[in-house]
Structure formats: C-alpha cells, structure tokens
C-alpha cells in the first residue's frame, strides 16, 4: 500500500518537472540522427550506391545492417536511462527534498524501493522512445535502399526486447550510483566520464591486449552489449576484442548485479544516514 503510494509519488516527481522530456528529446535527436546517418551510409555502401573506401573497411553484408542500426538505441543511448536514474535520486539531495520525502514515507527501504519501481517505469518509457527513434528512421532508410528490414523476424523483436531490459537495468544502475554518490554534479560528471571515455578506452585496449579483454567483458557497457547481442562496437571490431563476449543472459545478469550491488551499498551507506 505505502509502496504503491511511494511509487506513484516518485513518478509524479518525474513528470512534474521538465527534465524527463528534455532528456527524451535529446535522446530522440541523438540516437535518431545516428541511426539515420549510419543507415544511409552503410545502406549506400552495401548496395554499391557509394563506393567502399577499399583498403579501409569492407562493405558490411546487408544482413547485419538492421540489428546494427536498431541496436544503436542501447549502444550509444544507454547513458540516458543511466542519467535519469542518477537524477531521480540526486535531485532529492540537491533540492533538499529528502526531508518532505522521508516525512511522508518514513521507512527508508520503502522510499528507495518506490524509486526503484519508478526507475523501472522510466526505463521502459525511455526504451520505447529510443527504440522507436532508431527503428523508424533506420528501417525506413534501409527499405529505401531495398535492404530487408528484418522487422518480420522474431530474432529482431527478441533483440528489441533485450534492449528494453537493458534500458531498465541501466536506470536501476543510475539509481544505485545516485544513492551512493549523492552529489548531483559529481554523479552526472562521473557517469558521463565513465561511460563515454573510461570504458570505451578500456574496451579498445581490450581489443589489443588479451589479458585485458578477459576483464573488460565484465564492464557494465560490455555486459549491456552482450545482453543486447548486437552493437556498432561489436560489429566493427571483433566480438571478443570489444568485450561483449558473454551470453546474452549472462550479460543481463552482470548488469543486474551492478544495479543490485550499487543499490545495496547506497542503501546501507548513504540512504539510511541522518538527514540534516
């Protein structure tokens, strides 16, 4: 009862400020334009409309283009559910609204669980937005080049489903990071630095150094790519080298593990602390 109330309250918090739709707009613009651009480029190269750059990259086979384009939603867009999760918690610290929140929901565990459930909903919302933003322009452009969009195949729909799961898990990872770090600017800068610079560099290094590759597959971004099963990074490199070498379910469990560990640590060391 009080958990349902807490969850409704958290969702009202999300939808009564402008952050959610600003992030959603940026997400649409970012993954949508990336999907459209790459679908146009690869589609043109694959069909011979554009000459391949020869010595550089071989033309990609048509069959792998649809999953590659569609999965851009997670491959480049996963930072968005992560950010919304971070903001969902750090906003309370930043605006000192933890006091009224805990007065209305005195049991801290219930309050945090309410945030987790709201985070799942937000993850679903962003997943739908992101998947639509890559599939709609991607499929349209591929079809224009006469390439099979594969939208009739269950494999593609299974992949889209796994992308939705990845978005939800990333939102939960964000809630855990936010609960632990508390400082909004620090948490946002931290997750952007990690996801956009640190992990890509480590995964690139993993592509060259065998010993690093084993460790790299356990990184959250690599686990996410393993879960989805296709990604611009895994396609352009080797699956091994980019770190996305786990089974899809194992990748999902690794990402879930990050979320659970961060949430438990956040609850124990930060969420239960005095609110002064």
């Amino acid at each position, binding site marked *: 009862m009080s958990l349902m109330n807490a969850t409704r309250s958290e969702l*009202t918090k999300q939808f*009564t*400020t402008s*952050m959610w739709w600003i992030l959603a707009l940026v997400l649409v613009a970012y993954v949508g334009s990336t999907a459209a651009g790459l679908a146009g480029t690869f589609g043109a190269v694959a069909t011979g409309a554009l000459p391949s750059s020869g010595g550089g990259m071989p033309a990609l086979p048509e069959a792998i283009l649809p999953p590659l384009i569609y999965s851009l939603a997670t491959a480049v867009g996963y930072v968005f559910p992560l950010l919304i999760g971070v903001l969902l918690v750090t906003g309370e610290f930043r605006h000192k609204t933890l006091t009224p929140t805990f*007065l*209305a929901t005195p049991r801290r565990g219930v309050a945090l669980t309410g945030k987790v459930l709201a985070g799942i909903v937000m993850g679903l919302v962003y997943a739908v937005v992101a998947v639509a933003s890559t599939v709609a322009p991607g499929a349209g452009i591929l079809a224009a080049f006469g390439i099979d969009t594969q939208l009739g195949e269950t494999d593609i729909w299974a992949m889209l489903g796994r992308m939705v799961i990845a978005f939800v898990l990333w939102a939960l990872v964000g809630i855990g990071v936010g609960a632990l770090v508390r400082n909004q600017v620090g948490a946002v800068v931290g997750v952007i630095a990690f996801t956009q610079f640190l992990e890509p560099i480590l995964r690139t290094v993993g592509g060259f150094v065998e010993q690093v590759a084993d460790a790299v597959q356990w990184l959250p971004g690599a686990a996410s790519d393993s879960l989805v099963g296709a990604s611009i990074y895994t396609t352009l490199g080797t699956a091994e080298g980019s770190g996305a070498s786990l089974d899809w379910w194992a990748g999902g469990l690794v990402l879930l593990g990050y979320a659970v560990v961060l949430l438990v640590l956040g609850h124990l060391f930060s969420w239960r602390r005095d609110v002064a």
Partner: protein
Amino acid sequence: MPEGHVLEFTGLTKRFGPITAVDDFSARVEPGVVTGFLGPNGAGKTTTLRMLLGLIGASAGTATIGGQRYAQLRHPLQTVGAALEASSFHPGRTAANHLKVYAQAAGIPSSRIDEALGTVGLADVAGRKVGGYSLGMRQRLGLAYTLLGDPGVLVLDEPANGLDPEGIKWMRGFLRELAAQGRTVLVSSHLLTEMQQTVDALLIIARGRLVFQGRLYELTEQDEFSTVVDAPDRAALTAALDAQGIGYQQVRSGLTVPGTDTATVGAAAAAAGVALSTLQKRGPALEEVFLDLVNGARTHPSAQVGADATDAVEQTAEPLASADDTSQTGEGDQR
C-alpha cells in the same frame, strides 16, 4: 477534528563525533496550546526536532508522538505536519504539483491540495513554479505541506523567517487557532520577542540542554519588577532617592528602580518636592531572563537543574571535607 498528541522527549541525546549537539533532553509538549521551542542558533533545536521526526537517529533516548516513534506511525502526514526549512522544493515544480507529490506518497486525497493552498493564501499562485516564489511564499507553502493531512500535531521550525509583519501577524493567529482546536503546536524560534505574543508554553534549550520548561508566565518570579521614573530635574530626583536610601540605575529614558513599587518611589519624590515626568511599573524583561537562562547565569527548577546545583554544592564542600581529613590525620600523626 483531528486529535492532538502529547510529544514526549526522554533523555534524548545526539552526538556528532566529539560534539554533543543534544544532551539528555527530556521534555513534554501538551496538546491544546502553542508551545514555543526557544534557544539561540546552534543550541540544538533543529536537531531535536529532526530526531522527533525520525530524520536523524538518536544516540540515546527517545522522542515519541502519542507514545509512538515517528517511523511507527501508520499515517505519518495525517498525524504530524512538519515544516523544517523554507528551501525543500524543486524550483521547476509548481506549488500544486509539489503538494501532489507528497499527498500521493501519504495516500491523502488530492482535494486536500487546494484546501491547504487556500488556507495559507496561495490559491491564486498554485500553478506557478516555486522557483519564482518569495521567501514568505515558500514559508506559506511549507505550512500548506504541514496541513495536507489535517494532522493533530504541527511541528514548525522557524516559521516566521522571511515573513513580513502582516504575515507574522497572520501566522500568530493561525497557530493559536490550530491550538484552540485541540492540536499540538510546537514552534521553534531563536527570538523570544517573536514568540511572546504567540505561545502559551515554552521550552528553552541552550547548548543542547533543556534550561526551562513551563508556562510563559512561570519564566519570571512575580515579585521581579522595577519602577521606571524620571523628572525634568533629574539631579533633584536622584538626590531624593539617595535621601531615602533607594537604589537605582541610570538609563537613557530615566531611572530604573528595581524591586520598589511606584507608590514608594512617588512618595520619595513628593517628600523632596520633585515633579515627575514619568512614573511607571515595568514587568520583568523576559528577554533578560531568557538570556540569563541561556548563558547559564540563571537556572530554573523546571529544567531539573536541581541535581546539577547539588553537585556544585558538593564539589565546593569537598575541599572543606578533605581539609578536615588532613587536619584529622595531622592530629593522628601528632599522637
């Protein structure tokens, strides 16, 4: 009508590392009256209130609302309404949505949102973002939050901060009305003058310890008064008082004669043929009593400082006893 509950603090203590912010604080707050919670900045008021509300964990002791700790309350916002700071808002959210967030969390029907906003006079600006609110409007919104669940207990930390004189007057009447309805109203402040016209009962805290608890009139002894007197010929007046052996203090507005009534002072002046321009009785200055309590120059039995007083006596008595001891052993040695 919601029922008020007794607030009970028992041996409440909070230590932050080596600092004891609240030290063995025991007090009782009754429903039906406005109780002021007074103390200088940093005395531990806010920490005490936050412990009562379960926001800060106590190092020792308990604070209960009708016998229950805050976290045990089945319907917290319907039992206790609390406003602790004027800045607990997301600036981009409207006032109505701000209240909606917490009404949903507490399972309060949304019809209460408009009622609460109307009560505090914010109905017209309910749809505006809180970021554009003045401090006074934020204080009112904080008050609207406390009223959402129509609770029997109200806990307000410095609610008059940022209010204009009209707002303060409104707040006074409002708090008294809530108390008259049988609710428990606990209001903190660091200014006695702000409280004097509002509260019936008073808790005073200084350096984390309770130094007074009781009715406002119990703060001072009834025979603690003085007479303010002045004459155009002040030199003649002082001479007249000196002649009668009456002590006085020179102040800007005349002379203050402590502990002597107006009749005696007037008679002394008349005997010397001095015409007076001022002759009035002045009650005890609450502010001075408050400051004396806070800095420890004065103690009040309601704060259980009796135990401490005896300790002090025993300590001063000890050296005497030990002196006796040494003299006795000295005698023993001589024998």
